[in-house]
Structure formats: C-alpha cells, structure tokens
C-alpha cells in the first residue's frame, strides 16, 4: 500500500500549460501571446548583448570559483540592485537603513518577504493578518503568501473592466476600509496582468491613505526599465514611498530587464527605520534563507553586479533595456492603429495607455477561446496578451483575429 496513493493530480499551472499547448500546435501561423518573456521581432528569445559580454568576462576570470555565496547573497549585487530601485542618491541608503537579501528571482524575494512578515510583522504570528493583492494580479501572488502561512489573502479593487482602466475609487475605498496594519502588495510599474498603473497623482493619494492607516507597503518590481525604457521613471512610485518614510519591502526581479530568466536573479530590498532595525531584520532573514535554500545561486548575481558596477557596461545595459521597451511600445502603437483601421468595435486606447509587457485586451473568455481554438493564437483566459509575442510579421494576423473574435463572438 503506497503512502502516496491518495495524492491527487494537481491542475497544471495555467500559463505553462498554455505554452505547452502552443508548442504542440502544428498550425503554421500560430502565435504565442501567453508567457511573459521578451521576444525579438523574429519571435526569438534575446540574450542581451551586455550579458553575453559579461558572461565571457566571467568564464575567463581564473580568480572566480564556485564557492558558496554568503547566506544573504553577493554583497556587490545586493547593494547595487537596491541602488537601482531606490536611486544613487537615496537618502535612505545614505542613512544606512537600506539592506537586501539576494533571492531566487522575484518569486523568491516575495517569498522571503512573506515569510518574514508572517513571523515578525505585527506580533509574532501573522497568520490572520490580511494580505491584499490587486484584483486581478499575477496568479502566483496568492500562493506565495498563503504558502507562507497567511490565511487571509484578499483582493483590493484595481481593474475597472467597463472603462478598461484603474478603479481608483474602489482602490482607495479598500484602503480606507481594510483592517489597520493590513499588508498590501503593490505593483511598482507595468502592472501584471493589466498593464495599467496609477499616475503620480494617484500614487500620492494611495500613499496618503496607507500612511494614515498604518498599512504595510510591499512593492513587487519586476519590470524596472522594461516598462517605459527609463529606470528612474519606472521606480518613481517606489522612491516616492521611500521619501515619505515608510518602512517597506521591495521585491525586485532581474528576469525581464536583464533577460536572465533562468538564472533566478532577484533582490528583496528592505527599507528600515534605522540601521539597528535593519541589522536585526537581516539577521532573522538569514535564518529563513538557511532553511529554504541556504544561500543563493551565484551566476546571475555576478552578471548583474559586474554590469551595474562597471560604467560602460551599465550604459550598455540601459541601452539594451531601452531596445526592449521601445519594441513593445512600437507593437502597442501598431496594434492599436490596425484595430482602429479595421474598425473593430470598441475603443482601443487602452492598448497604448497600458504599459509594460502585458495588455488586458478586454476579450471575454468566449472570445479568448475563439482566438485559441479557431485562430491558434494563445492568450490567457483573462484576455491578457504578452505584447512581446507580437512581431511585424504576425501583427496583421493577430489584429484581424481580434477583429473576428470581437465581431463574431459575444
């Protein structure tokens, strides 16, 4: 009698199943608008030229070995990564109250932050503390926090499906009515999946309520630089909140902006009240890291650290990032233009109003099914498309298919 005979088959993770179905599809004009990775105009993955350069440097450096990193990670990676988020001249950094934990991708950073909060945030047992994630949000946010022990993970109003934009009133309403000291997961920029970000004025309103009601700020920053093409612009919200004096976390991912997806490069930036708080926080983070992965992988962190800390390479990197951001912006502009010229019913301003890799098209589940089954265009059931999947070669086919879906299927 097997001990595992009762283990049920789990449902596959939707976004990966989508890619699998796409891979198995034989249709010659198929298009994958599912998983969130950058593609060139030839529809190919893109290893950033600066990354190739730095990898060569690493491979030829005989002084480098494969020894363990410290538990919290590569020091030069942690500090330079935090600087990218907070800015070179960040007062918080100058006041020695910013620290970081190198983690396995953005997911790992969220995980470490969540585990820490559950143990230490508001008393020593936060299993009942509400954690708010946007409606909708990246599908893994829920699981990260609930697996860390939070029993009450709830949505806050965010996306207004009717007007296809931010439901600011709803958002602010949830901020006003939630239990004090609730934890809020905020998308720093390029909201996933909607691509809809608050404006600076709206962020100010959000911050005011959060400060007044003592809510915890946990930023998820997975697209810095990738959204607008400017590191500073994409970090505006994070830096604004820091300037107000929040004690906060920021989970950073270098998967997209460095194209280092499979090396798992992430950083949990901790902004504390003072150096003493910071020291104690990091000492407890070490304990959590130690029982999860002991110490993080070195390759990706080395690539990022060398790039960020070498002026010419840093410039080249910013250039590479702008290349990616610009292509996405171009596809947005072209898709909107084509839909408008086709006379596709509805407004399509949101295609260019939205920012980052993803767009919430507004297609309903039936229309999505049509796209997938009849047109072999793979997108998430939510209507989310990855703009990176569009190329100059397939954009006409996609625009025409959207037109068909909207006009034929209700």
């Amino acid at each position, binding site marked *: 009698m097997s001990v595992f005979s009762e283990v049920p088959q789990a449902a596959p993770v939707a976004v990966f199943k989508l890619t699998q179905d796409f891979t198995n599809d034989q249709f010659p004009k198929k298009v994958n608008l599912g998983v969130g990775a950058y593609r060139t105009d030839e529809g190919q993955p893109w*290893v950033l030229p600066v990354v190739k350069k730095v990898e060569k440097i690493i491979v030829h450096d005989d002084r480098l070995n494969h020894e363990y990193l410290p538990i919290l990670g590569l020091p030069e990676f942690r500090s330079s990564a935090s600087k990218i988020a907070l800015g070179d001249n960040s007062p918080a950094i100058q006041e020695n109250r910013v620290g970081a934990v190198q983690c396995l991708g953005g*997911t790992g950073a969220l995980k470490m932050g969540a585990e820490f909060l559950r143990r230490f945030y508001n008393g020593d047992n936060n299993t009942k503390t509400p954690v708010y994630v946007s409606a909708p949000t990246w599908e893994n946010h829920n699981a990260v926090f609930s697996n860390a022990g939070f029993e009450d993970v709830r949505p806050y109003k965010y996306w207004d499906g009717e007007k296809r934009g931010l439901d600011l009133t709803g958002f602010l309403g949830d901020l006003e009515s939630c239990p004090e000291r609730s934890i809020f997961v905020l998308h720093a920029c390029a909201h996933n999946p909607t691509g809809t970000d608050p404006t600076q004025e709206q962020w100010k309103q959000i911050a005011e309520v959060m400060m007044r009601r003592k809510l915890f700020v946990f930023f998820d920053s997975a697209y810095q630089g990738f959204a607008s093409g400017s590191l500073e612009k994409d970090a505006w919200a994070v830096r604004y909140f820091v300037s107000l004096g929040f004690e906060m976390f920021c989970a950073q991912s270098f998967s997209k902006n460095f194209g280092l997806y499979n090396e798992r490069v992430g950083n949990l930036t901790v902004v504390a009240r003072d150096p003493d708080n910071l020291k104690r926080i990091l000492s407890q983070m070490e*304990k959590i890291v130690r029982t999860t992965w002991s110490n993080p992988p070195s390759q990706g962190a080395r690539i990022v650290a060398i790039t960020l800390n070498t002026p010419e390479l840093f410039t080249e990197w910013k250039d590479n990032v702008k290349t990616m951001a610009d292509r996405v912006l171009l596809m947005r502009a072209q898709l909107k233009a084509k839909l408008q010229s086709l006379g596709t019913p509805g407004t399509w301003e949101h295609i260019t109003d939205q920012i980052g890799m993803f767009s919430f098209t507004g297609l309903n589940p039936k229309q999505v099914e049509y796209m997938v089954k009849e047109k072999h265009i793979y997108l998430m059931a939510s209507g989310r498309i990855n703009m990176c999947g569009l190329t100059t070669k397939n954009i006409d086919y996609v625009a025409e298919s959207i037109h068909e879906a909207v006009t034929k299927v209700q």
Partner: protein
Amino acid sequence: ICLQFSSLLLFCFGLCSSWWGGVQMGPPDPILGVTEAFKRDTNPKKMNLGVGAYRDDQGKPFVLSCVRKAEALIASKQLDKEYLPIGGLGEFTKACAQLALGNDSEVLKSSRNITVQTISGTGSLRIGANFLSRFHGGPRDVYLPKPSWGNHTPIFRDAGMQLKAYRYYDPSTCGFDFKGALEDISKIPEQSVILLHACAHNPTGVDPRPEQWKEIADIVKKRNLLVFFDMAYQGFASGDIDRDAWAVRYFIEQGHNIVLSQSFAKNMGLYGERVGGFTVVCKDAEEAKRVESQLKILIRPIYSNPPMNGARIASTILSTPDLRSLWLEEVHGMANRIIKMREQLAAGLKKNGSSHNWQHVIDQIGMFCFTGLKPEQVERIIKEYSVYMTKDGRISMAGVSSGNVGYLAEAIHAVTK
C-alpha cells in the same frame, strides 16, 4: 533641503514605533563564528577546520577541470536564458536520478520515480519536507540520527514536521552505536519518517557497514517506516560513486519506496551554483505523475523554477563520456586526498606518542571527522594552537593538508595527553 524634509517626516512618523521594534537579533551561526574567529587570528600556523568545502593540498578552493571544460562547452553553444520548467532541466533530472539509482535501475526503467531539480541539498530537503508535511498520511515525526547535520532540524521544523531522534554515534568508541540504533528504530511508530545519511555521515563521518545497513533496512521495513535518504557526498566519500550509493540502491531493491535528496555541491564542487535533486520513488508511473504535479505546486510559490547554470554544468558532465570519466577521476582524487590526510593524521598522533586509540580517524569517512575532543580540549586547541573547529570536536578534513597535518597532530596530542 530634501534630506532635512525627509528626516523631519521620519521624526514625525517615528513617534509611532517601528514595525520591527520587537524583532530580536538572530543567534549567530556557530560555524560562521568559527570562521570569523579564524579570520581575526594572526597566528601564521592557524588552521580553519570548520570549513565545509573541499580544499586542495595548498588549502585553496578547487574548481574541477571537468567543470571548467563543461563551462567552455556550454559557452560555445550560445544557449538562451528562457525559464526552465518548474521541475528543472530535464537532462539534468534524468542524469541525476541515474547517478543515484544506477543505470540498470528497475525504478528508472518503469519510470516510477519523479526527480525534480532543486536548490542544492538544502532546497531538496526543504521541498521533501514540505511534500511530506502536506501529503504524508503517517505521523508528522521525522527521526534523525543523533547527531545529524545542524540544519536538518530547522528545515523540517519550518516545514511543519516534528523532530525526534534515534541513537547513532557512540562517543565511547567514536563509532557507530549499531545496537542502540536498532533498538531505537525498532520502537519508532509505524509510518513515521526516518532520515538516513546515505554515506559520509555529517557530522561524525561514521557510516554503517553493509551488513549493518542490511539489518537496518530489515527493521525499517518491519516498522513500515518511510525512508528519507540524504545523499550529499556521492563519490566524495569512498571515491567510488556506486559504492557510495550502495545503501540507497539496496533499500530500493528491498522494496522501500524512498524519498531522496542529492547535492552536487561537494562532489562536483558546484557549491555556489546550487545544484541538487529530489526524488520520490513511487509505486508506479501513474503515481509518479500525480506526485510530480504536486511537487510543482509546492515549488512554484517558493522560487517558480530553478537556476540553470549549475544544472547545465552537471548534466553536461554526466552525459559527455570524456567529461564523465574526468569527473570520476577528480572526485576519486578529492576522496583520496582526504583519506590520505586521515592516515597521516593518525600516524602523526602515534608518532607524537599519543596513548589514545585514533583508529576512528581512519575508520570515519568523508569530509568530517569527529575527533572525540571534549569541549575543554576544543577550547584549548583553539586558544593555544589556533586550530579552529566546532565545539563538538568536529573537524573538516578538507582543511588539512600535507603542509599542516604534522602541526595538527602535535596540537591534538598536546591537548589530549
């Protein structure tokens, strides 16, 4: 102006207390503490025997040639950096399972194992612990040998399991307490989880002999226990990968459907690349698929998918005949150097005129040696001889070289005579 303004804001909001005021300073890591003290010591003859990473005879970190060659091969392929599947690099997990189970394994032939890539040994143990915590129908108790690797306890505890122990190390012989182990294991409640070190027990270096393993397998079966093997030193212990995996393979042959953690940190020197595997041997292929789906659900909210670099290196080595042969030579070389240092240490103690029996230094296997030094003796050897080890008298043989083994023998003799 900006600095003043934000400080003012901070002052105002600082009147309400920090979120983290109640966070205590975490206890210092005992092993790290040894290294810190070693670094501060100015004695030119100082030795760091706390280090858990292999060192060559010059005391330097050792990057294996097969690793460098594999890296060059990989670099020439210009691969992309797309996300790996949640369960990791397929070529790696296949090779990883084959290495542990053997090429002729019936388990592999019938596809009744699921092997996922993990964040080295720690990550593997953690995923395993989480899996058992969620799905194991038996008692939530994990039985560890006494003593065991320090990190085992917090890993299982954080995953929601409870820790118990069975006798293992006999301080009076510096060897295996076989009788005590069998007695304790025979009393473990059915369906509990028992953790076994496959080879090169950490921290004692004491492994059961094959006949003893057979009896352990027997009683474990009688008690219907779920076996969790931790294999962090395959190849590194005896120098022979098949010999070091013998216990794992024997248990499987005897019908135990084990769970297994593997690390490539030591045997491939890939410490910082975090290369490991977690295997569940299931009843059949169908069960393996179900278990796989649940492992993915566990992994996704922790780190989504594992890092590529180390797994790519390991899999290249294992599946490229030249590199695999080279690896086997090099791992044999590392194990041999350790074995030689053990012999020289024992001989040196004898030469110094020690009246104690130091046979255990030679009998023990792997990176670590439980010297038998008592806490007061450890304190003396650190203070008077600048020989750094953990309080339990454990030394890492990796920190011993032909250049300092003589000094070590003198120092140990001095504090134990």
